[in-house]
């Protein structure tokens, strides 16, 4: 059996070992399954394990590599997929009781692409029910209860890609697929101390993925480093005519960390006097100082003066309540773990048709303004969150850490990519992150700066205590 140390290696390193036949995909997959068996009862990261499929895919990868066939950097590398992407013949629960036994006849495009790239699916990952689209107030608003944070089992992972965050953080898998509508890749990556990449809207096909908000949903990778996220994105991306919103764009260039030193970088200065944790502030400001010391020229900047959050909220509410209309009609929404979820449908009726159109018109202005913004800046830096992970079993409103999220709203409303990278620890020994946003289809810039940062710091290599104790 391979040691746990192997499982903490980044995808790039594992890939070299697998392709050089120094480790076997079957051994690697068995090591993941064994680690899941030992640790997941504490983490609740997985909804469904697929050991038979995983070992079959691993054996195929092993045979192919032995015969000289090379499918690329993910060949023989295990992963987990958030349980909102369809997997043929394997239940896809969307994290919600009404869909507990849901089966699809086909794989989602992203699952097919990863299979074609030789990746090995070890299981489906836990998530907040319906990706949080009908509201939730606690971390255990999920078919499988709360995913627990590997850095402190009493704390939450954030959502809605909860299992993806926990599984990568605890090295149960080298990478995972998450999704973001508003914060669901960046926040779990932040709370779990891993790297996460929210791609440009349209970069990755959503065919076969649960729709929460057709004009906001994105699928993206969560992994041990910014470079790993880029490797996985390469396998996931590409135009898909079956997804109406899929962008017909060529793949971006590979990131260049050296070029990142010449970036025009802006950073947002949150109102730390009003919100957040002082030790998170320290970590964020130290990260900025480290980047400046590495030669990056940073300047404080501000977002355009536009109602990003209000427009995002109106669009999201409208699309989510339409997406799950049948759940309201059938009464299925009353089976959800969040008792107040059902009322979301009634609340959404306060939105007039003209409000939604107006929100979409405001979105046009927001897109233009952010396009101009990223004409002046290569990247925008801000904290992934102003606080650390709250307890998973408490109502979020009890925490007191809530802060406005204009950058998150701007990024998601305008479909812009972002990378979250760990940037230290707060006083409670929980991770904090630096988030790097860039212009549309310029993932390479955000990744490049993430790689530069991870080249001068070692936060992304830290291991949660759960794993060292096990």
């Amino acid at each position, binding site marked *: 059996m391979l040691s746990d140390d192997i499982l903490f290696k980044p995808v790039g390193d594992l890939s070299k070992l697998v392709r050089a036949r120094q480790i076997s995909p079957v051994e690697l997959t068995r090591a993941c399954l064994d680690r899941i068996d030992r640790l997941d009862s504490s983490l609740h990261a997985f909804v469904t394990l697929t050991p038979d499929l995983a070992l079959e895919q691993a054996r195929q990868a092993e045979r192919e590599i032995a015969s000289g066939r090379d499918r690329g950097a993910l060949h023989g590398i295990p992963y987990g997929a958030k349980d909102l992407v369809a997997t043929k013949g394997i239940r896809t629960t969307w994290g919600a009781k009404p869909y507990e036994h849901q089966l699809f006849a086909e794989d989602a495009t992203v699952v097919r692409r990863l299979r074609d790239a030789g990746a090995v699916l070890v299981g489906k990952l836990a998530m907040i029910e319906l990706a949080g689209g009908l509201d939730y107030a606690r971390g255990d608003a999920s078919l499988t209860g709360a995913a627990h944070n590997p850095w402190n089992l009493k704390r939450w992972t954030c959502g809605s890609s909860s299992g993806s965050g926990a599984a990568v953080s605890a090295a149960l898998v080298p990478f995972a697929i998450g999704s973001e509508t508003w914060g669901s890749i960046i926040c779990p990556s932040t709370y779990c101390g891993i790297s996460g990449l929210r791609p440009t809207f349209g970069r990755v096909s959503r065919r076969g993925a649960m729709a929460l908000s057709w004009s906001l949903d994105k699928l993206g990778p969560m992994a041990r480093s910014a470079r790993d996220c880029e490797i996985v994105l390469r396998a996931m991306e590409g135009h898909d005519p079956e997804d109406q919103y899929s962008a017909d764009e060529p793949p971006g260039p590979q990131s260049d960390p050296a070029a990142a030193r010449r970036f025009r970088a802006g950073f947002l200065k949150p109102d730390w006097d009003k919100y957040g944790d002082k030790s998170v502030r320290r970590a964020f400001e130290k990260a900025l100082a480290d980047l400046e010391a590495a030669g990056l020229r940073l300047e404080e900047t501000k977002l355009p003066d536009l109602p990003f959050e209000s427009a995002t909220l109106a669009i999201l509410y409208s699309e989510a309540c339409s997406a799950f209309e049948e759940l309201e009609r059938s009464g299925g929404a009353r089976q959800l773990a969040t008792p107040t979820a059902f009322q979301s449908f009634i609340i959404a009726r306060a939105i007039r048709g003209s409000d939604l159109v107006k929100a979409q018109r*405001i979105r046009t202005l927001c897109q233009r303004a952010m396009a101009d913004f990223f004409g002046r800046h290569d990247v925008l830096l801000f904290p992934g969150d102003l606080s650390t992970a709250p307890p998973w079993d408490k109502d*979020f409103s009890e925490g007191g850490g*809530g802060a406005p999220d204009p950058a998150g709203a701007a990024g998601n409303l305008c479909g812009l990519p972002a990378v979250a990278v760990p940037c230290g620890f707060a006083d409670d020994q929980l991770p904090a992150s630096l988030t790097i946003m860039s212009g549309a289809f310029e993932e390479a810039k955000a990744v490049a700066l993430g790689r530069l940062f991870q080249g001068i710091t070692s936060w992304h290599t830290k291991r949660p205590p759960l794993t060292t104790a096990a």
Partner: protein
Amino acid sequence: MKLSRRSINRLIFGAPVAAAAAAVVPSALIGIRPAAAQAAAEAAPAEETKPAVAPEPSPLARFLSKQEADLSSEERARIRRKVTDLEQSLSEIRAFKLDNSVPPSGTFRALRARR
């Protein structure tokens, strides 16, 4: 979707959305923020020093929170906050001035015949 930070924010701090946004943004670029929102933003610093005050629930919020006999008082309060949150967003959207030339962001395209 992650949790609604703004709902939490309102509960804890009682600060309007515009106040929160004003903390991080400069003057308008293309669209024009409504006078009411601007005024709220300008009034915000004074409000910050006041103790947290829950906003008056709207008729819709009161109606909704009475619908479910099996909801706890916390859950009813959450519904009230959600409604307040959405209504404030809608107020901001409705008051936002836009030129006639600004179209919605979604692009409608005619589909060619499928043969």
